[in-house]
């Protein structure tokens, strides 16, 4: 018997090696029946679970949009909360299908990690938060400050660059989890809390007295945040990319989750193309022609998602600013569906 073990082991090895992941991500997702989406461990407005474990946020809506495009059902998503450190490995190894987790698009991440950024769903920049009683009005007055932040983010590098460029001494205190950063800053361990400006507004809500803290005017970096997929599967890359584009285009055309059914009867050819009334744009990405209709029906257009999660009427109270449509003086400009 024993002399048969080795051939068996080797044979099994060859077999596994040969059958290594030949299915596309779309086929895998369809077989599973849901999209596995990587999100943060809790960043209000972007990806945050409530007491019942329902995830909401701008980044979460994008995942729900992808699920709606694939299945016609925005709830066919499962979420994997990931730390900054784990996120790319989880995507590379196939543990998640899409990473939608306030992740900055940088060249090294796009080229060295075997990943592709599918667009930008929030134009952000890094800012500083301080106690009002410090009497600081500009980031250039922060010489000698101690700075609390998260490990393993672009934030850490930007702080180092900024303080060095302005030859200001500083002390960095970097924590693994955002909650610990907030706790340490709240306890007074640091003078400054730094992360992406959107994150500052979100985390300020967790402080004991949010009103005692202010965000300084300086934005020291470009942080285009967007969804990420694995490199080498263009079809899935296209689905992620065009889900985001469909949400932005829908806002531009005035298509909302409320009026999307009426809009199907619109005379506007670009609306017809978007909603699958004309043309066969869905087939090209392996989906039904009503893919964009399902996205908008399921999660609404970009503006709706923004207003519901981070907009002026939410606790975060973030103005559209540069995240407005190009036609309103912002940066959002999606290629047309045609």
């Amino acid at each position: 018997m024993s002399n048969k073990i080795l051939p068996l082991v080797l044979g099994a090895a060859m077999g596994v090696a040969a059958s290594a992941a030949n299915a596309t991500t779309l086929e895998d997702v369809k077989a599973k029946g849901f999209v596995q989406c990587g999100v943060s461990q809790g960043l209000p407005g972007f990806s945050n679970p409530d007491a019942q474990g329902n995830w909401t946020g701008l980044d979460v809506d994008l995942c729900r949009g992808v699920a709606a495009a694939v299945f016609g059902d925005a709830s066919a998503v499962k979420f994997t909360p990931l730390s900054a450190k784990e996120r790319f490995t989880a995507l590379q190894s196939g543990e998640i299908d899409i990473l939608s987790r306030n992740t900055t698009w940088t060249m090294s991440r796009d080229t060295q990690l075997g990943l592709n950024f599918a667009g930008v769903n929030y134009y952000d920049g890094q800012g500083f938060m301080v106690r009002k009683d410090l009497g600081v009005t500009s980031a250039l007055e922060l010489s000698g400050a101690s700075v609390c932040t998260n490990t393993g983010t672009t934030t850490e590098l930007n702080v180092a660059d900024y303080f060095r460029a302005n030859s200001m001494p500083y002390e960095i205190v970097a924590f693994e989890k955002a909650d610990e950063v907030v706790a340490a800053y709240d306890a007074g361990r640091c003078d400054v809390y730094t992360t992406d400006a959107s994150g500052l507004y979100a985390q300020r809500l967790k402080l004991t007295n949010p009103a005692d803290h202010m965000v300084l005017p300086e934005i020291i970096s470009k942080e285009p945040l967007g969804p990420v997929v694995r490199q080498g599967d263009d079809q899935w890359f296209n689905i992620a990319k065009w889900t985001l584009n469909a949400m932005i285009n829908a806002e531009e055309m005035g298509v909302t989750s409320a009026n999307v059914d009426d809009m199907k009867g619109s005379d506007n050819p670009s609306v017809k193309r978007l909603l699958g009334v004309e043309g066969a744009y869905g087939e090209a990405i392996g989906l039904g022609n009503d893919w964009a209709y399902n996205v908008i029906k399921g999660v609404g257009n970009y503006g709706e998602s923004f207003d519901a999660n981070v907009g002026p009427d939410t606790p975060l109270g973030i103005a559209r600013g540069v995240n407005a449509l190009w036609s309103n003086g912002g940066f959002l400009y999606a290629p047309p569906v045609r």
Partner: protein
Amino acid sequence: MSIQEQDSAGAPARASLLNDPKARGLFYQATLIIALVAFGWFIVSNTVENLERQNIASGFGFLQNTAGFGIIQALVDYTETSSYGQAIIVGFFNTLLVAVIGIFLATIIGFVVGIARLSNNWVISRLAYCYVELIRNVPLLLQIFFWYFAVLRAVPGKRDKWSFLFDTFHLNIAGLRGPQPVFEEGSGIIGWALVLAIVLAFAVARWSRKRQEATGQQFPVFLTGIGMIIGLPLIAYLFAGMPMHFNYPEFVETGPMLRRGFTLGSGFNLIPEFLALTLALSIYTAAFIAEIVRAGIQAVSHGQSEAAHALGLRNGPTLRLVIIPQAMRVIIPPLTSQYLNLTKNSSLAVAIAFPDLVSVGGTVLNQTGQAIEIIGIWMFVYLTLSLLTSAFMNWYNQRMALVER
């Protein structure tokens, strides 16, 4: 069944080879080793192939690239322009520092508490018992958080301080500050004097042991040693013209709010992350060491102490000369495990922002995406540290072992 391929020994003994237990044993072992090697090779080749297929860069070349992030505590030269490799070395030394200081403190506290548990004084033994039961049964991570967050909120803020020991040490939320000795030109002689004092102390100890064996007279070795270790460097210091001054922490009480408090880089500062981690690790591991010490002492038969008392030894010398040396044989092996635990537990530093190997490595992992390489470095370093600790403790154990006469 085709044994011919494996069996090159020849035809005549084939039948007996099949039933020869030695040959069969060899064959099974060889098969197992080949299977293991094949499995390992398959795992490695599969990983390499997958990395290539996904266009993920691999290899250790990234260690030469510029790190670009700051580290709060570095024992070796480090700036933002240093390489990733240098950053990992900084993390390694921080881990080593916590491990060494933690082991030292945990051993002292553990021995004191362990002996206190056996005290005849009811209050002392109960206190030691409560300490062990409380600390041993609360998860370590919670204790680290307790020392960091609960204590952080209890001490004064950055613009304030508690001073003690005649105003030389100050504690606030930014850490424990004290005077930092600054060595000037010609201060090398002080270091040499210290080395000489230590060598002399050992020599005196050997000489006194020999003399005691020959004549029975005792010599105050401990006091002499301490005297030399303090005295010789002091004499050298005065002799060299006092080439050393202290850099005192500067505390600013006026001016803009942010400028108040201790100036960065003035005096000597132990950051609160380091204090919390070292305290938590020492106190936690000490509880286990206390139990090991108690078990070791109780393993020495009661007749030994009675015999020592009969010879006229008082309680202190009985414990020091008779009980503890015999108890050590029981104590050392489990003590080694506790030392290894403490070293490995120091990786919890990442939770409270102390830049140890895991914390810094994690940052590098994230900036470069080289997960497999970084995790390989982590495993290699912890494994090496643990094996070195084990090797040292095994050597010490052999020295302490019962010598057959």
